[in-house]
């Protein structure tokens, strides 16, 4: 599974990076690399069974702290 994910990100990079470099779209190239790195890191963490806090639990925690939600 990890190999598939790395292959997918590598393929995207191999296609996009030369295309963006040729078109001199430096800003998009940089942000493409940033977003791809974030996506790859998240996938690797997921595959390594690292517990990433879900957005719902985080938001529920904030709303519980403020006390802003409907009662059960």
């Amino acid at each position, binding site marked *: 599974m990890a190999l598939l994910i790395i292959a997918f990100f590598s393929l*995207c990079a191999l296609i996009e990076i030369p295309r963006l470099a040729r078109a001199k*779209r430096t800003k998009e190239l940089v*942000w493409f690399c940033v977003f791809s790195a*974030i996506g790859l890191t998240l996938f690797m963490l997921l595959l390594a069974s690292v517990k*990433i806090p879900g*957005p*719902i639990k985080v938001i529920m925690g904030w*709303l519980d702290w403020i006390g*802003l939600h409907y009662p059960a």
Partner: protein
Amino acid sequence: MNDELKTSQLTPLTISFILGSALLITMVDGITAHDTWMVVIAGFVLCLPFLLIYAHLAKRFPGKSLIEMNDVIFGKVVGKIVSAIYVAYFFLLLTFNINDAAGFYVGYVMPDTPDMAFLIIFTLVCAFAVHRGLVAIAKVSLATTALAVTVVALTTLMLIGNMDSSNLLPLFDKPLIRYVQATQIVVELPFLEIVSLLMVMPLIKDNRKLTRSWITGAAVAAVLMLAIVLRNTLVLGGASNILGENSFEAIRLINIGEFLTRIELLIAINYTTFFFIKISVLYYVTLNGISQLLRLERANALILPLGSIAVVFAYIKVDSAVIHAIWGAQYAPVFSFPCTVFFPLLMLIVAALRKLRTPPPDALRQQEIKPEP
């Protein structure tokens, strides 16, 4: 990604976008049970003022997206902060909807298939749609709307024999807070998520019929949602607030001459098309929002990386179905309130007080110039 979106295409897009939240009706059934039909009507009526606010903002700042409006209204710094909150909201909505789509398939159609397979496939299909542009998505929404109307009409007709009007009684037997809670869920989650369509205003060159498109879209979606809720309540009765997916369970009861049975797959197809439109639109507006915040000319290169991050967030969204149900019933309406109600109201008030508006785009201005006698 830069085509022109006609306001006539906006109506079916709005309908399909709102119906993308049709699954949450099951959640509302758990709160108001057989009174959910009244909540849907109340939700539609209460959403109208806010739709008018969104349309008014779009007409006050023609050709500007929500992020550009925030810059004009709140200034560069505060505007960027508000825009970042909106982009985060759209991204979270995107991940929630991808998770709901995959969850529906894993729960009802292919339970032995891993979640990740559906998450990746859905996201890839929607990524392709985003790459083709919003106008292509809007053209598909015409077909999805026609399918929705056909399926709802047919299944309702086929279930007439199973309906019992006493299932609608007794009325108002729940505490008032439950009706308020359910109404807020119905107002904010399906209807007011249309605020995301403010991001596509630059694609609409002539917005004179914008209000009519949105109101018509919301009205048709409300009628379809009401038909779905009434059908489910009349057929399932008291079981509707304990079953998992009411439409699915109701359609399972269709058995005409031992020949026309097991047509609940129609519901699965309907939901798939709704989810496709909603996820594609949210994907598009998130990408658009990020590209405007980062001042990128074109953001096509970010489609797949953003999709990969969305898949991971959709996968880790929630630990269990119980927490998901609690989130939907108690926390989701509060979570949606700032971006669907508070900020648009604030934008309108500040724009009105500061007398802010931008001139219409050139094409529209030329049409308004009367010819000399």
